[in-house]
């Protein structure tokens, strides 16, 4: 069965559009990425799935159950980490986590054990008051409250903001662990690199509609990278004439171009050059979306 299925899900905030006719299917057991620029409608979609806001039209089901009609029942199996975490300032971390645990039909002992395990892994002092925690640490609390009850569906809304790289890695390992155990993950982000690392499939949303749903492999193959390099001696422009190179610019010893294709092909080409410096940049989101618009036009 599909973990999540939306049918023409639409939400207007008064006159301004949130999302329009979103059809999305997340299969059980996959890690599904949801990317788009700010304001595209990622959070709107997620919040509708959770019953925090109500759709203007259309519907959605989680594990086959309608999200509005059977919301509380569904959420027994869902773990949610919002993009901005706000908790009750008067509580300590452990208090908040126990309070969170009390909502689920699981053995409190099991959840408590899991809380401690996760806190240890993420390096979080459970005895500190929420008010005294830094933003990153509050996010850790968020991660734990989303995972402690071992949910079958984990929904993450831009989860890595505020986390240092080491903890981020821990977090991704955790997610992979859960996924190996069979959990489905919906991961929304505007950081392409993260999505590429974790997800099996990804949906791209822009201005309220889903533009594309791709396998990550395809995305990787199709993604453009910008190469900037400096050579020791003046380069021969013909050397860069391999498939996939575009927007080539040579100025003295500095060369810049866009490359789309297999990484190994371009690195073999670069290996033949006498390099002084090399910089490879991720495409920014605009470039990606430009690509997808072009692709749409080309059909």
């Amino acid at each position, binding site marked *: 069965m599909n973990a999540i299925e939306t049918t023409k899900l639409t939400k207007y905030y008064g006159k301004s559009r949130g999302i329009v006719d979103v059809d999305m299917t997340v299969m059980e057991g996959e890690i599904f990425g949801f990317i788009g620029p700010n304001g595209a409608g990622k959070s709107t979609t997620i919040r509708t799935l959770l019953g925090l*806001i109500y759709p203007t039209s259309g519907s959605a089901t989680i594990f086959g159950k309608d999200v509005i009609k059977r919301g*509380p029942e569904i959420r027994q199996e869902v773990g949610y980490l919002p993009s901005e*975490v*706000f908790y009750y300032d008067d509580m300590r971390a452990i208090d908040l986590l126990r309070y969170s645990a009390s909502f689920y039909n699981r053995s409190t002992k099991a959840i408590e054990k899991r809380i401690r395990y996760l806190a240890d892994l993420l390096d979080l002092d459970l005895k500190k008051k929420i008010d005294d925690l830094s933003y990153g640490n509050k996010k850790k609390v968020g991660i734990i*409250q989303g995972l402690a009850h071992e949910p079958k569906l984990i929904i993450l809304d831009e989860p890595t903001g505020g986390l240092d790289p080491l903890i981020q890695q821990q977090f991704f390992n955790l997610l992979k662990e859960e996924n190996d155990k069979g959990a489905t993950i919906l991961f929304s982000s505007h950081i392409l690199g993260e999505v590429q690392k974790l997800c099996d499939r990804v949906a791209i949303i822009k201005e309220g509609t889903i533009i594309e749903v791709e396998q990550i492999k395809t995305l990787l193959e199709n993604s453009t990278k910008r190469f900037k390099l400096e050579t020791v001696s003046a380069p021969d422009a013909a050397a860069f004439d391999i498939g996939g190179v575009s927007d080539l610019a040579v100025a003295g010893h500095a060369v810049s171009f866009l490359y789309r294709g297999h990484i190994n092909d371009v690195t073999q080409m670069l290996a033949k050059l006498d390099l002084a410096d090399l910089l490879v940049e991720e495409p920014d989101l605009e470039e990606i979306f430009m690509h997808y618009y072009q692709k749409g036009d080309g059909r």
Partner: protein
Amino acid sequence: MNIFLRELKAHRTGTIWWSVGIVSLIAAGMAKYAAYQAAGQSVTDMLSSLPRTVQVVFGLTGFDLATASGFYGVLFLYIAVMAAVHASLLGANLISKEERDRTSEFLYAKPISRGRALTAKLLAGLTMIVILNLVTYVSSIYSVNYLGNGTGADSDILLLTVGLLFLQLMFFAIGALVAGLVRKPKAAPSLATSIMFVTFMVFYLVNLDASLDFLKYLTPFKYFDAAALMATGQFDPVFVVLAVAIIGLSIFGTYRFYSARDLTV
């Protein structure tokens, strides 16, 4: 249940302070009553011959100030106002705080329906209101009997206290309704207390001008007016029914609107 207990804990200091406040009000009021008693006897005759407007201006309507219970009746209005402020704020804050503090994404993404959360919150509020009411009752009995040397006032005090409970519940329910309706969580407590304040003004107006008597249905303070209660010794059934209706409709409305609207982020 967890939400119920959490709300009680979160409001613990508040409930204590309000209780202390009300006890102080009652105790201070009755404690000095003795000094006033010296001028007691002749006052009643004179005051009753005063024109109505003057009586109202001094808040004396219908009380026998020579007795402790009469004096308590005057004091009662202030107790009622304090309790009304507490109840309005409590009702509004309990419901709106999740959106105000942005914790709604935590709480309402949990496997509970909004209705269940509301029930827990309303029950917690009810508990605190009853606590405040009991505190008022006990300190009133004590103050009137021992500090004020009054006797035979207990049945009056009981009547007034029950009336107070209705009053508290009405403002609590209205506060909750306002918070359930309104999208801006910060506006809820202001709006709820403004409503309370307006009804208080209307109460005063109705007392001042007999021709405005028809307005009495607009102000809960008139439903359980101390003077009327002590004079007749019982509740006016019309007012009681109205009170119950208002409480019931407000609570129903709270559930209806809060469950159906988007949560403010």
